[in-house]
């Protein structure tokens, strides 16, 4: 996580930042020329500690971008910068091609960025409807409109094909892990989120529950949402990801379509920052290698 003593890394990494936009135009001709979210030279320091250095990342709509990296590589820091929990120390965030400043979680929500954290942030004592609508309850004469709330929640769950819950009036505390994850995702999507960020969505889930969540992730992307998934589980990553971005010691060392990676190369990049097996991939891994070697 510490990049001390390598300040001269910055210019080349930054210079290497230009291609990503190019890459995305090459790889996704169906998409508009700009990705939904573009990060340019994002840095984040905590005092002398550089948690992130010059991260350039494109997140296109309708695709699942997997963010991988070893512990402390800066994955969580990066999504917290996008989600407005922390403000980046430097760099630019472009949303729909326009530069934006995300200073608080509210700003992020207003843009259409929803984050599903690992802890899911659900109230066990409230039911599914109450959790999904929390903070956005529709009012009728100052009284909450329970009927429209329940219908909205039901419809969202139906759209996402979350059918395993028996009643939307069950308390969330009574749900299984995968169901809780589904509720958290449905809650995020319901707020007209265009970008859904998920932090370790399959951690601590059993096999069948993981299936549930993975299919939910692909469904989100096919509905046109941009999805960012942080995961340690490379099996899951290769199951759902359209694009893979690898963080190493606070730098984005590789990004590109998932087809250009294989599990071994990803592990190698995650642990060393470079990939010997991946020479053919000019757009992704080798650019990262260049950046690291300065």
């Amino acid at each position, binding site marked *: 996580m510490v990049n001390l003593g390598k300040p001269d890394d910055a210019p080349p990494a930054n210079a290497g930042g230009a291609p990503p936009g190019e890459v995305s135009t090459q790889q996704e001709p169906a998409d508009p020329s700009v990705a939904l979210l573009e990060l340019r030279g994002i840095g984040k320091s905590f005092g002398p500690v550089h948690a992130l250095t010059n991260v350039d990342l494109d997140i296109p709509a309708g695709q699942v971008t997997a963010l991988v990296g070893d512990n402390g590589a800066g994955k969580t820091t990066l999504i917290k910068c996008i989600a407005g929990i922390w403000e980046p120390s430097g760099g630019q965030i472009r949303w729909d091609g326009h530069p934006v400043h995300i200073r608080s979680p509210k700003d992020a929500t207003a843009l259409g960025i929803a984050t599903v954290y690992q*802890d899911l942030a659900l109230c066990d004592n*409230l039911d599914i409807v109450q959790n999904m609508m929390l903070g956005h309850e529709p009012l009728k004469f100052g009284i909450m409109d329970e009927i429209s709330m329940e219908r909205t929640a039901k419809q969202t769950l139906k759209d996402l094909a979350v059918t395993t819950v028996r009643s939307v009036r069950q*308390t969330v505390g009574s749900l*299984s892990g995968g169901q809780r994850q589904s509720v958290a995702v449905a809650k995020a999507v319901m707020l007209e989120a265009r970008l859904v960020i998920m932090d370790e969505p399959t951690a601590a889930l059993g096999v069948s529950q993981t299936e549930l969540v993975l299919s939910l992730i692909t469904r989100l992307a096919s509905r046109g949402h941009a999805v960012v998934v942080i995961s340690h589980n490379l099996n899951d990553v290769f199951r759902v990801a359209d694009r893979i971005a690898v963080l190493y010691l606070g730098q984005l060392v590789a990004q590109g379509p998932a087809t250009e990676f294989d599990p071994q190369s990803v592990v190698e990049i995650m642990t060393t920052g470079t990939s010997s097996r991946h020479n053919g991939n000019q757009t992704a891994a080798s650019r990262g290698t260049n950046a690291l070697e300065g």
Partner: protein
Amino acid sequence: MAPADRGDMDTETGGPVALVSDAERMEGAADGAAVTTSAPDLIADSLGEYIRIWFRRVRSGESGVLPVVLGLIVIVIYFQIRSHLFLSAGNLVNLITQAAFIVTFGMAEVFVLLLGEIDLSVGYNAALGAVVTLWILSGAHPPPWWVGVIGGLAFCAAYAGLEGLIITWLRLPSFVVTLAGYLGGFGLLLAFIDMAAPNSGGTIRMTSSVLNAIEGGSMSPAASWIVMIAAVAVAGLFMALRDINRRRHKLAAPPITVTVLKIAAMAVAGVVVVLISNTNRGVGFSVVEGVPWVVLVILGLLVVWTILLNRTRFGRYVYAIGGNAEAARRAGVNLSRIRIAAFMLCGLTAGVSGIIYSSNLSGMSSNFQGGQYVLYAVAAAVIGGVSLFGGRGRMLGAVLGGLVVGVIYNGLQLLGLGAAAQNIWTAGVLLGAVTVDALARRSSATS
């Protein structure tokens, strides 16, 4: 610390255990394993299923109000066996007026307990509010009674609001801040009474006949019937309309039998209260009958606070903060504002309690047992099923819990037993209620 990803270590902890139960739940949620803690109202399709779900819920610690009702009945039967006077009209009305201020104390505490906080200062805050009210209404040309009430309640809300402000701003534990509020309140009570009524020996008199009538006066028997019938009719109408509306929108509604039974239970309770109260309880030739006004005050408070907690955003956020404050914060809830408002409502309700208390005594005294009453307040709420850890409980529970405390107080007095027995009994019931709650919760967590 910052860049470290949370929870990286426990990727595998879900393990086989989770797998089994998850698969089970996914396949056959119909067995109800997953609905243990959910409200039966909107899940059950029939009366039988309603009862099954309800019973499962009781076992899992989400007991609702029925256990406290059952407890209340058991205690009442015990006292009636020991003393035939217990269920006499005179004693029951006496019981209601005695228990009224404990009931409202319990209701006050609900607001902060739901947040997972506690307010130890409600007792002296209530006394201070009463003194302020009486102070405003003292003198040769007192303003109308409601001016005093507004002044007293505003003071209580401000006092508790200040505590809430300190708790949220400085992030201090509510236990300590309200302990300071408790001690300071006692000091202020002595000072206020001294200023308001110098050389009175530490008492201030209630001069308003309207406020004295809260505890001392009753509605006429006819008015009692009208109020009771109207209250049951309105409540029943709302429940029925809600069900019809839900069915119209193709949403699950409680079985009709359940709704009918609930309305019937309300009607029976209302009829019993009115029948007892309308019996002449005067001694000798004087005729005393009708429902005491304080019943109406508590009923009104119960309805308004229940609507506030269950049907408004504020109430929903109070429960959400008690359940998971971080989730509420991320949902955009202003935690400080809700917390301070909840403390203010706690203070306000305590103020009502103080006025009821002073109405019963026709004044307020510096001998007010503020410390004891706080503990009664917490006991009332907890006996009524309000969790000390926040997020669970209802206003109605506090009312019933307060009645339990009141019944014990009254019954033991009737048996000629003093404060010693009374406190030991209350302790036992409180401990029993908490133990049952904790055991039920634990069994649901391990099952």
